[in-house]
């Protein structure tokens, strides 16, 4: 189904080869022929600004737990996906489609319940978090047929991306760019004081839902790289390091982009070295970001 995305052919014949050639020209001789690695680097370039844009919001407005709940919903989403995959015989259903839809529903669901009750954010998110994880575990234990495939989702695998994966990332990156051009300022005002935003005729509810939806889409995309367990780190750690280095909103955004890019590229390359070739790439990327965070702390103190 993903293989039938409109524009995919154009992407894999025209755009991606160009990008791959660019990346290859920067690689040392020994790594010239590892196309999967070049694709991984392209993915890093595509996701870095997304991590930064979403991460800045997540860090400044304390939404790490929200992001965690959405990422863990992927667990249940994929489990549902495999059930559908087995049930649908007419074509091969990609379980990731169910994962994305489920993730968006959970994001919107949390946003909706939060608006309608006076429970604290943490409580609402906690209820959703445990429910979706329980659903995932229930399905997997009842139908263990595909349980061998779950580590891929838990830990991520940036080295096994295909053209369609990259194309989806590129589409989302463009969508995110447009969204961040049009709605960065309103979202910031909403985060600071939603009544103030409302008084300036900003449609608070619309932006709340749009943001929840986009955050879910970004998280679902990042799961392929970092896995369910570490997705939130991809958003939080670069932005947290950037916060230590920046004094203004734009400074924080650009630092976060740079740090996300450096840590994901460095993590990918390092995990490819002989010594670390059995270590999960997602983990190395997050560790690289954590090192940068530690340095940023020192820079802040000093």
């Amino acid at each position: 189904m993903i293989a039938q995305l409109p524009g995919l052919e154009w992407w894999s014949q025209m755009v991606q080869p160009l990008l791959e050639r660019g990346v290859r020209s920067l690689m040392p001789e020994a790594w010239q022929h590892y196309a999967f690695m070049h694709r991984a680097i392209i993915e890093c370039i595509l996701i870095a600004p997304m991590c930064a844009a979403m991460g800045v919001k997540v860090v400044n407005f304390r939404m790490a737990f929200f992001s965690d709940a959405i990422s863990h919903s992927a667990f249940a989403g994929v489990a549902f996906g495999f059930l559908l995959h087995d049930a649908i015989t007419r074509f091969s259903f990609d379980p990731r489609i169910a994962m994305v839809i489920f993730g968006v529903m959970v994001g919107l669901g949390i946003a909706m319940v939060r608006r309608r009750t006076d429970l604290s954010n943490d409580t609402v998110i906690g209820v959703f978090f445990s429910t979706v994880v329980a659903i995932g575990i229930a399905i997997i234990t009842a139908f263990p047929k595909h349980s061998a495939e779950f580590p891929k989702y838990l830990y991520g695998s940036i080295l096994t991306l295909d053209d369609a994966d990259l194309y989806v990332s590129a589409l989302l990156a463009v969508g995110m760019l447009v969204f961040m051009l049009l709605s960065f300022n309103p979202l910031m005002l909403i985060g600071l004081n939603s009544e103030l935003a409302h008084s300036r005729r900003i449609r608070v509810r619309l932006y709340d839902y749009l943001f929840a939806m986009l955050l879910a889409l970004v998280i679902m995309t990042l799961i392929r790289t970092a896995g369910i367990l570490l997705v939130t780190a991809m958003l939080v750690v670069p932005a947290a390091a950037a916060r230590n280095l920046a004094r203004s909103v734009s400074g924080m955004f650009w630092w976060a982009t740079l740090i996300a890019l450096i840590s994901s590229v460095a993590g990918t390359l390092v995990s490819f070295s002989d010594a670390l070739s059995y270590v999960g790439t997602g983990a190395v990327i997050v560790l690289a970001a954590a090192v940068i965070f530690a340095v940023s702390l020192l820079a802040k103190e000093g």
Partner: protein
Amino acid sequence: MTSTARIPKDGYALRLRNVSVTLGGVQILSNVTAQPAVGALNAIIGPNGAGKTTLLRAILGLVPYTGTIQIGQTVEGEPLRLGYVPQRLDFDRGMPISVLDFMCAGLQRRPVWLGHSRTARSVAAKYLAQVGGSGWEHKSLGRLSGGELQRVLLAMALSHEPDILLLDEPVSGVDVAGEELFCDLLGSLQQEGRYTMLLVSHDLSIVTQHAQYVICLNQTVQCQGDAVTTLTAENLRALYRQDVSLYEHTGTHEGHAHKHHHGTGGQGHTGHGCPGPHSH
């Protein structure tokens, strides 16, 4: 100063008729009917839990209500603009956001991560100057004192060029000096006559000093009218009931012929506020 107020087409800036609010089964406001004076400082006073903030929230359209709230129109038929100064900004103080980032987020379409537009920058500078905050552009929002932040919030509201300015306890949690400064600002805005202001305040000293119209609220409107005739000991005693001794101490203050109710103890304030009397 001459009045530059946009005169509303039908002679009112804001008109409330039988406004009632029930939240979670509790009636907060019932049948509030009021018409604040155009181009003046209107004070909403009343004890804790009287529904003052809820009334502002209803006007902003943030809580469901019954009855009607009409926002006036300009001569051209456009609705008057609302400006809102919240009680506080509940944000992460360590967040890297400058005063200019904050102001520009409301003044320009361009996302602030791509920089500040020249127009937004000059508008921000103009209103910061008006609140005595010239040169604050690159200060971090989280490092401002309570009083400074409140003045930035006022500048932010003014930069939206509102006709109606809603202020919710703007000086709660502000130190004495900051409170006096803010109070002076309100006085000069009031004299400018450009804004129809609605001020919710515990601080009766601000109210007696600058308000021209007073709405006494305790779930419903207990009394309203121009400040001199409304702020009587009798009305205040009725409004605050047993708390009255904390609010009222009558005395003759220089420059005021009427009784001057000063001090707002009992709600975390001591009796400070506006410095000396202003000439009206």
